[in-house]
């Protein structure tokens, strides 16, 4: 690898000015304050519900980013090498997520109906609070350990100049397997079981694939300002966005496929223990409009608007489309969780502040990461160096 490239990338560390972090940390603090002030008051249920929605969404994005990097590594994909560090940088938030997971159990009475209800066998075994806490905390901790080793190896490649691709390719499948299992547990315990009589076998994949799609969207969204600010035009060319646009479009189709697979099966069989969950979200107001908005944001809009090549390679356009899809996936978590806990759709300033707090916290940890470590994985054997405007 060209030494000048190494020097150039290494020089891009610590370039983000301190005020940027301060702004994001301040916004995150606002979110924390809005949450803490209300966590025991009249609006406790409302803020805890929003906490759960955001916890699941942002944890998914954070881990999904690392999984995307793992996928690129396993498949020897050269095309996305330049974006690999950015997407794996999201995983820096997973440390915060572990704390948030523990916080979640403090508010169990507000968000987890099974914490204060008793159910018949076998649900009394599976939904026993100690068991729920143990399996989720232990599972997520294992995932974090894997994350740590994967990220450390990945960064070592750049900083020590030693090729570690073999080790990375061994760690990557482990991360993906544990991700699928732990995030299925999250999906079952923190979304599906909120309506303890409802079940769907596809629910786990629906959550962990959705998180991966959100992470792909976030990679597009966050890489563009970074590229502008740090001057990464030589490394992130229009080909990267062209391919990322295609991936996002393909995955929007896959998302709707998973959604439809569940919906059609439940609708056709028309069994009351299954349809209740869907009717509340898809047929009855106030959530019906929400469901249509999600379908539009996650599938119809990105799928159609990403068809022309221009929309994939002009960065402001592709960022806009990715933002719509990203927001849609946030609303999707909202719709999966909230109707199980309440019949009304209320919006307040707290909703906004808490979500903003999570967003700011996520961006702040991400920026800390990319500021500290090389933003382009130049030490990776499949990294082709400066993009010459051609080739895959």
């Amino acid at each position, binding site marked *: 690898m060209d030494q000048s490239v190494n020097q150039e990338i290494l020089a891009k560390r610590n370039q983000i000015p301190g005020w940027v972090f301060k702004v994001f940390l301040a916004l995150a603090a606002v979110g924390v304050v809005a949450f803490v002030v209300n966590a025991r008051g009249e609006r406790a249920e409302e803020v805890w519900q929003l906490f759960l929605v955001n916890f699941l969404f942002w944890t998914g994005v954070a881990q999904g980013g690392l999984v995307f990097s793992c996928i690129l590594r*396993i*498949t020897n994909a050269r*095309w996305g090498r330049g974006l690999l560090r950015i997407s794996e940088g999201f995983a820096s938030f997973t440390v915060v997520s572990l704390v948030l997971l523990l916080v979640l159990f403090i508010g169990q009475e507000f968000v987890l109906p099974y914490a204060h209800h008793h159910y*018949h*066998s*076998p*649900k009394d075994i*599976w939904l026993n609070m100690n068991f729920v806490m143990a399996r989720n905390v232990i599972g997520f901790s294992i995932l974090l350990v894997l994350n740590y080793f994967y990220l450390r190896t990945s960064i070592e490649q750049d900083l020590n100049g030693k090729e570690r691709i073999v080790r990375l390719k061994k760690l990557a*499948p482990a991360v993906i*397997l544990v991700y*699928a299992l732990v995030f*299925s547990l999250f999906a*079952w315990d923190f979304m599906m079981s909120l309506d303890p009589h409802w*079940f*769907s*076998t*596809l*629910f*786990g*994949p629906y959550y962990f694939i959705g998180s991966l799609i959100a992470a792909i969207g976030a990679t597009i969204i966050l890489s563009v300002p970074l590229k502008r600010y740090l001057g990464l035009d030589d490394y992130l060319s229009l080909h990267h966005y062209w391919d990322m646009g295609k991936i996002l479009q393909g995955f929007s*189709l*896959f998302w709707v*496929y*998973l959604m439809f*697979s*569940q919906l*059609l*099966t*439940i609708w*056709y*069989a028309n*069994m009351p223990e299954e349809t209740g969950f869907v009717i509340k979200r898809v047929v009855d107001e106030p959530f019906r409009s929400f469901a249509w908005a999600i379908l539009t944001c996650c599938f119809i809009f990105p799928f159609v608007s990403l068809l022309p090549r221009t929309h994939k390679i002009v960065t402001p356009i592709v960022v806009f489309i990715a933002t719509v899809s990203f927001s849609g996936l946030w609303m999707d978590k909202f719709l999966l969780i909230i109707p199980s806990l309440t019949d009304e759709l209320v919006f307040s300033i707290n909703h906004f502040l808490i979500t903003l707090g999570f967003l700011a916290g996520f961006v702040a940890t991400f920026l800390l990461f990319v500021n500290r470590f090389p933003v382009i994985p130049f030490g990776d054997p499949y990294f082709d160096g400066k993009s010459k405007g051609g080739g*895959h």
Partner: protein
Amino acid sequence: MSQMQQRPLTYARVTEDVVRMVDKPSKKWWALFLPTVALVGLGVTCFFYQVAEGLGVAGYRHPVFWGVYITDFVFWVGIAHSGTLISAILYLFRARFRMSIYRIAEAMTVFAVLTAGLFPIIHLGRPWNFLWLIPYPNSRELWINFKSPLVWDVFAVGTYLTVSSVFFVVGMIPDIAAIRDKVKETPRKIIYSILSFGWKGSNKEWLHYTRAYLYFAALATPLVLSVHSVVSWDFAMGNVPGWHTTIFPPYFVAGAIFSGLAMVITLTIPIRKIFHLEDYITLDNYDGMAKLIILTSCIVGYAYAAEFFMAWYSGSPYEWGQFVYRATGEYALFYWTMVICNCVVPIVLWWEKVRKNIKALFVISILINIGMWFERFNIIVISLSRDFEPGAWGIYKISFVEAGITIGSFAWFFMFFLLFVKTLPAVSIAEMKEILPVPKKGG
């Protein structure tokens, strides 16, 4: 063979080797071909016996009226999947390991769909009425029942057959033209001339051709998901314990790709040996396929576990009873064969040594095919033999007619395949040349 490996792959050698494959069949080929024809004869005989005697000879007993034929149908549709995966999806992902094997996989797809399409008809009591499944204007103004997933099947499989055949035929045009230019005898020359659609290999033709191929790939990609999803809905739409579950569509698709890849490995290993294609179908190609097998095996394993878990978690006695019965009842042997072949055996593929060991791969791929056949059998037969009402439970046994027709279907598939490798280019000349280094002047 050792001589051939010493010669480096060049443009000229690729063409020569492929043209040699479609030469006059050897005795070995006849020794393989004639038994398959005989076994097809066995299948046909069994079928006519069944037509004459009625479906009773097919082992159908109350309450199981879907048996081996539907299992075979799902099995063969599944086999068809990896062809489109390899030729379309991996093409879009620019995965190079597909290039040497995609033609064989595509051919396999077309023949597997042809085989699968027979089974719904064999399964009918009055097979000559199969036309009633197709919507056509008629004097009695009768329409098919569009609400039935079985009718969705007709459309799904019909579309799949059409698209995969077109993809297959279009993909071969430049290669057939290359053979046309080499062969001398008149009748073959005429046939290859017709099939090559007057291809000259000009720049303009290549421009349109590559463009068209890209669009075909993009159109064929959703089909990989849709066809087997529709097949899965044949079951998931029904309120039978063990059938009605939301994970079925992606689970069936993953299972189909899983078994299809295994079949590609099963077929290419002997072909590679017989035609000395070691330089074309390399160990790295097998490595890539084996990795995809690991992935799909994990998805299938996840689905087994998720189904089992939900059956327990749901608290439904019917669902839970069904799954306990699968694992411990009369069919437990079939169930554990499935689990071991599909989830346990592929674990050895995590080692690169195994992924690049041809003998090991051959054995594993056959085990996977056995496992996947039993998966469909378990889903269909075990669920039907024990549904909600204990008074209606019953046991189903495979009859000799069903066994004969199943063996016949394998022979039918291999017969087409043997004809294919002797008449059409089984390795893509054009795409192989794409990955070879460009020849130097005078070199």
